[in-house]
C-alpha cells in the first residue's frame, strides 16, 4: 500500500477505486459478524467461493463478506446486490442454488422471506416489515463494506469527511458542526457530544489530550457496539481522527472487551491499513496533523464501561470509579484531559461531517436528533439489531419492526437500558424513545438493550435476575451499592419464594431509594431501577407473591406446582423426559406428577404436544 502524501493523493485514489467499480455486477453479500458466523455464515462463504471458482464466475459475480446487517433471527442470510434480493436462513444446498440462479439471472421464490403475519413471500430486503420502518444510517453501511478492506470503505465514501475537514475545516468548525447536529452520546447518559468536545478543546494541552472510544459494552444481551466495530471499524477510526482534529487531542484509545475477538481483529487490521495509507499516525495526508490510536483490551467487567473506571483500567489499575468532579475532560488518563465517547457516537461523526449537521438533525426529534440502534430481544418474532429514528414509540418497535409476540401470550412490558434500566408496561407503549422520556418513565436509554416480555414473564423474577447481575458486577467500593444490591437481591429472593411480608416490600423500596441516592457512580445510581420500575408498574404481582404466595406468571419455582390435566393422551413423552422420574401413568391413560419428586424444571410442559401440563 502506498502512503498518501496529500489530500489530492487521497482524492485521486478514491476516484480510481470508484471508477474501477461496475455497480451492475451482481454481488453476493454475506453478513458474517459474530452472529452470522455462529449460525453458519462461514460455510456459506466457503461454498460460495468454491462455486464461483469452480464455475469460473469470479468476474461475473462478486462476493462481499460484511459485518452484521441486523436481522440476526434470519441468519445465516444472503443479500444479492444490486437487486436487493434477500434470502433468509440459507443452507449450504440453498447457497449452491443461489449462485446458479444469479448466473442465470433468476430468483428463487421458494427461498424468499415469508411474512409470518400475512404469509406472503417477500423478495426484496427493503420490503420486509422488519427493515421497512427502520432508518439505517449506520447499519446500512455495514452492508456496503467489507470491514477488512479499506478500499471498500473509501469506495463507499469513507474518509471523505476527514479529507473535507482537513481541506477547509477549522477545528472550531468541526466542534460547531457536531454541536449543532444535536448529537447526544449513545453510551447511555445522553450528554451533548459537541459540548464535551468543546470542553476538551478548551483545555490546555501541555502534555497532550486523549480521545477514547468506549467499546466495553457490558450490558447482557446488547451487541450493537460489537456489530459496528466488527462491521465498520474504519467509521470509528475516521470519527476519532475528525474528533482529534476538532479538539486538538493527540492520542486515541479504543477500549474494547477481550470477549470481542472478531471486533479486535478487524480493528487491528483497519488501524494497520489506515496507518499504511497515511490516514493515521504522523503527518496525516501530508497536512502536518498527527494522531494515532491504540487498542486497550478490557477484561469484561461491567463497571469498566463507566468513564472513570475505564480510565483507571486503561492506566492499568483496578477498574473502580472515582469521584466526579474532576470530570475526565478535566483530568482523565494519567491526569490528562480525556473525552470518552461510545462506539455508536463515533460512528455518527463521519455522517454528521459528511452530510452536514442540518441533514443529521432532520432525523429524530428536537433535542434528540439522529438514529439509535437497539438490540431487540426477548419474546418477540423478529429479534436483531434495529436502527430507528429517535422519538419513535416503543409500540412501533415492538409491533411494526419486531412483529409482535412469538406465540399466544400477550406482550406485557419491555425492559430498556440494560441491567440497570427499568421495565415499561404495555399501556405505556406510545412513549416516544428518547433520553428524557425514558427517564421520566423510570427507565433509562442505556446503550440500547431492549428486552420484550410477555405474560409468561414474572416481574419479580426479572428484578431478581438483574439484581443478581448487579450484585456481582458492582465494583464493591460503595457500601450502599455493594451491600445494597446484595440486600435487595436477598429480599427479592424471599419474595420469589413466598417468604416475605409487606414490611419487606416497604424495606425494599426504602433501601432502593437510598441506594439510588448515595452511590458514587452510575451503576449504583441506576441499580435500583429494575426494582423501582417493577414495583411502580407491577405492584399487584409483588402483592400476589407476598400475600397469596402465588406467582401469576408461573415462574417462581417455590410458588408453583405442575400438574397434568384432561388433555393428556397418555403418550408417555413427559414420563420419559422427566429427569426426576416424578411422572407416572400407563399408556393411553392420564399421567400424574408426584409433587414430592417434582423439581419444577418445566421439561414436561415444554415437551407435551397436547397442552396437558398446567402450572398453578
Amino acid at each position, binding site marked *: 500500500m502506498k502512503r498518501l502524501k496529500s489530500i489530492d493523493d487521497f482524492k485521486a485514489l478514491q476516484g480510481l477505486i470508484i471508477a474501477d467499480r461496475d455497480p451492475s455486477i451482481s454481488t453476493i453479500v454475506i453478513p458474517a459478524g459474530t452472529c452470522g458466523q455462529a449460525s453458519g455464515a462461514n460455510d456459506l462463504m466457503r461454498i460460495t467461493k468454491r462455486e464461483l471458482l469452480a464455475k469460473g464466475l469470479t468476474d461475473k459475480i462478486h462476493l462481499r463478506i460484511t459485518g452484521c446487517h441486523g436481522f440476526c433471527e434470519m441468519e445465516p442470510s444472503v443479500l444479492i446486490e444490486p437487486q436487493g434480493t434477500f434470502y433468509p436462513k440459507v443452507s449450504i444446498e440453498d447457497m449452491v442454488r443461489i449462485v446458479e440462479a444469479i448466473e442465470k439471472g433468476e430468483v428463487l421464490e421458494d427461498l424468499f422471506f415469508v411474512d409470518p403475519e400475512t404469509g406472503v413471500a417477500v423478495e426484496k430486503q427493503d420490503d420486509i416489515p422488519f427493515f421497512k420502518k427502520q432508518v439505517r444510517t449506520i447499519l446500512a453501511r455495514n452492508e456496503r463494506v467489507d470491514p477488512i478492506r479499506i478500499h471498500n470503505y473509501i469506495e463507499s465514501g469513507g474518509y471523505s469527511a476527514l479529507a473535507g475537514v482537513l481541506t477547509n475545516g477549522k477545528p472550531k468548525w468541526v466542534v460547531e458542526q457536531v454541536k449543532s447536529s444535536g448529537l447526544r452520546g449513545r453510551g447511555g447518559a445522553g450528554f451533548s457530544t459537541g459540548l464535551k468536545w468543546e470542553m476538551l478543546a478548551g483545555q490546555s494541552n501541555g502534555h497532550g489530550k486523549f480521545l477514547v472510544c468506549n467499546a466495553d459494552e457490558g450490558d447482557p444481551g446488547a451487541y450493537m457496539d460489537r456489530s459496528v466495530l466488527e462491521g465498520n471499524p474504519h467509521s470509528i477510526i475516521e470519527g476519532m481522527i475528525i474528533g482529534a482534529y476538532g479538539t486538538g487531542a493527540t492520542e486515541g484509545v479504543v477500549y474494547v472487551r477481550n470477549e470481542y475477538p472478531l471486533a479486535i481483529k478487524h480493528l487491528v487490521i483497519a488501524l494497520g491499513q489506515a496507518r499504511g495509507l497515511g490516514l493515521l499516525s504522523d503527518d496525516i495526508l501530508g497536512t502536518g496533523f498527527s494522531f494515532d490510536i491504540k487498542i486497550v483490551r478490557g477484561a469484561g467487567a461491567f463497571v469498566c464501561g463507566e468513564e472513570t473506571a475505564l480510565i483507571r483500567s486503561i492506566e492499568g489499575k483496578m477498574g473502580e470509579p472515582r469521584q466526579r468532579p474532576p470530570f475526565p475532560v478535566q483530568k482523565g488518563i494519567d491526569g490528562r484531559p480525556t473525552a470518552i465517547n461510545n462506539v455508536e457516537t463515533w460512528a455518527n461523526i463521519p455522517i454528521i461531517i459528511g452530510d452536514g449537521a442540518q441533514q443529521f438533525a432532520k432525523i429524530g426529534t428536537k433535542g434528540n436528533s439522529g438514529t439509535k440502534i437497539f438490540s431487540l430481544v426477548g419474546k418477540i418474532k423478529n429479534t436483531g439489531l434495529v436502527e430507528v429514528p429517535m422519538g419513535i414509540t416503543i409500540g412501533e418497535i415492538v409491533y411494526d419492526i419486531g412483529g409482535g409476540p412469538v406465540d399466544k401470550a400477550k406482550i406485557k412490558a419491555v425492559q430498556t437500558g440494560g441491567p440497570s434500566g427499568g421495565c415499561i408496561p404495555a399501556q405505556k407503549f406510545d412513549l416516544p424513545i428518547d433520553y428524557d422520556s425514558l427517564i421520566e418513565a423510570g427507565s433509562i436509554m442505556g446503550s440500547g438493550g431492549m428486552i420484550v416480555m410477555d405474560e409468561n414473564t414474572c416481574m419479580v423474577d426479572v428484578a431478581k435476575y438483574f439484581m443478581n447481575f448487579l450484585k456481582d458486577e458492582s465494583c464493591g467500593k460503595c457500601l450502599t451499592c455493594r451491600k445494597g444490591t446484595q440486600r435487595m437481591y436477598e429480599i427479592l429472593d424471599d419474595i420469589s419464594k413466598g417468604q416475605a411480608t409487606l414490611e419487606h416490600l416497604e424495606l425494599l423500596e426504602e433501601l432502593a431509594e437510598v441506594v439510588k441516592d*448515595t452511590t458514587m457512580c452510575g451503576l449504583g445510581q441506576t441499580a435500583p431501577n429494575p426494582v423501582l420500575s417493577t414495583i411502580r408498574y407491577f405492584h399487584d404481582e409483588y402483592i400476589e407473591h407476598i400475600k397469596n404466595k402465588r406467582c401469576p406468571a408461573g415462574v417462581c419455582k417455590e410458588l408453583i406446582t405442575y400438574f397434568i390435566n384432561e388433555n393428556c393422551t397418555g403418550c408417555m413423552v413427559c414420563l420419559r423426559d422427566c429427569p426426576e422420574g416424578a411422572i407416572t401413568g400407563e399408556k393411553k391413560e392420564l399421567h400424574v406428577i408426584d409433587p414430592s419428586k417434582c423439581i419444577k424444571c418445566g421439561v414436561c410442559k415444554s415437551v407435551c404436544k397436547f397442552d396437558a401440563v398446567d402450572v398453578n
Partner: protein
Amino acid sequence: MINLTINSLNVSVEEGTTLLEAARFLGFHIPTLCYMDGLSPYGACRLCVVEIGEGPKAKLVSSCTYPAEMGLNVRTASSRVRRARKMILELLLASCPQSKTIQDLAAAHDVRQQRFKQEYEDCILCGLCVRMCEEQMMAKAIGFRGRGENRSIGTPFDITSDVCRQCGGCMYVCPACQLRCTYTEPEKAVCGGCANLSPPCLQKEQFDDMMCYMDPCVACEIKKD
C-alpha cells in the same frame, strides 16, 4: 478562594478543599467511617453524604470526596441526608454488628435495630487499612481484590507480601476489628471475642507484643508465653 453556603452559612475556602473539610471548619458535624485525617479520602462508606443542588437537580454526594465548588448550597442534615444515613447504618449493623465503632455511630443516630438478615462479617471494606499501609507506612502490602460480592482485602495469592513490615497499622485503623474495642482501656471494652483477629497481611504465628495491645488477650486463639 471559593465561596459556598453550608446550612445557610457563607464560607470561603481554598480551591481543592472538600465539602467535609469546609463543613468541619464551620463546626458542622458529619459522621464518617472511611475518612481519616492524613489519609486520602476514598468515598467507600457513604456515611458522610450531604445534599447539594436545587429542586429536581438536588442530589446526595459524599462530602469527603466532593470538592467545594463556587456557589454550592450544601445541606449537611436535611431529611434526605438523615434518611440515607440511617439506612447506611442499618446496612452496617446488619453486616458487622460487633464493631464498637459501628455500634456507637448507630446509637448516636438513633438506629437501634436493623431489618435485614443478620450477618457477622469482619470487614466493611472501608479501605482504611489499604490507604494506611500505602500512604503512611509506604508499604503497599495489602489491597483490594475481586468485585461485587467477592471483593475482599488481601495480598496477592494470599502470601504475605515481602514489603509487609508487620507494623500493625492496618489493625490500628480498622473500624471493624475487635482490637480497637479494648485497646489500652479495658473498661471501655465491648468484647466481641476477637472475631476479627486475622488481618490479611499478617500471619497469626507471627504475632508479637508489638501488635496486640491486650495482654493477656481475652479471646485470642494465639497463646503468648
